[in-house]
């Protein structure tokens, strides 16, 4: 993949992802965090496209941006009065956290770059995989698929139950 344009676009999205993720983590304002998380998700979705997983990318956008992020924003709004300016969230363990952050990232990178065992396959995945996903979902992964759907249903019902305001009997 030595197409320079390709490379540049990759780095662009990589930068967006990393920077927005950093902003999510380091800003004190919860609202800012939430909005910058939006960019992170988009960036990640873009990276998925680079990884030939266009369907996953679309799913990422639909689920994360359309679902999870909205949920998070609702959460923020429920738990903070939005009109307050000082929606600062406190931090703790900053020093050990930073150290660990550096340590983990360093260690992982060290591992990645010193490992010589990454032997990319001859046949890398090319083109769209939507059809293959559909095929696999309905054949090999039909049981996990069904289980996941049931799990999702149960989780949604459970969540709705948990978050209800006026519980009967209380």
């Amino acid at each position, binding site marked *: *993949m*030595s197409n320079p344009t*390709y*490379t540049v676009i990759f780095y662009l999205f*990589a930068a967006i*992802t*990393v920077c927005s*993720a950093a902003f*999510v*983590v380091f800003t004190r304002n*919860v609202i800012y965090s*939430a909005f910058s*998380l939006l960019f*992170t998700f988009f960036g*990640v979705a873009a*990276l*998925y496209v*680079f990884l030939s*997983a266009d*369907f*996953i990318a679309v*799913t990422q956008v639909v*689920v*994360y941006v359309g*679902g*999870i992020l909205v949920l*998070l924003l609702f*959460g*923020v709004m429920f*738990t903070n009065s939005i009109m307050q300016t000082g929606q600062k*969230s*406190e*931090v*703790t*363990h900053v020093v050990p*956290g930073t150290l*660990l*952050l550096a340590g983990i*990232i360093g260690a*992982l*990178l060290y591992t*990645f770059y010193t490992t010589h065992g*990454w032997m*990319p*396959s001859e046949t*890398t*995945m090319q083109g769209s995989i939507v059809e*293959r*996903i559909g095929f*696999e*979902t309905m054949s090999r*992964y039909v049981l996990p698929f069904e289980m996941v759907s049931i799990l*999702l249903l149960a*989780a*949604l019902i*459970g*969540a*709705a139950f*948990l*978050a209800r305001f006026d519980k009967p009997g209380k």
Partner: protein
Amino acid sequence: MEQFTTIGLNHYLTISAILLGFGLFAVMTRKNAIVVLMGVELILNAANINFLAFSKFNGGMEGVMFALFVIVIAAAEAAIALAIVINIFKLFKSVDVSSIDSMKE
């Protein structure tokens, strides 16, 4: 230099590692439960990137499928987690995870 111009596995892994690190940092240091949840989402995304990257460079479908399931489960997890957070807020009038330590002893 070729290392930088040819986008290979390690690039994705590096991004994934950074996202993981940020996610962990958020989980560890932030007091607001919502932000902690955001950190968790970052970690999950990092994992997904890994899955897809290995899938791409290995040619199989396993990573893709797993990523798909991870997204679904992340959705479920987010829903549940937020419900819990809202309950905690109703109970403690706060979402500060460090102040919620009634399980201590």
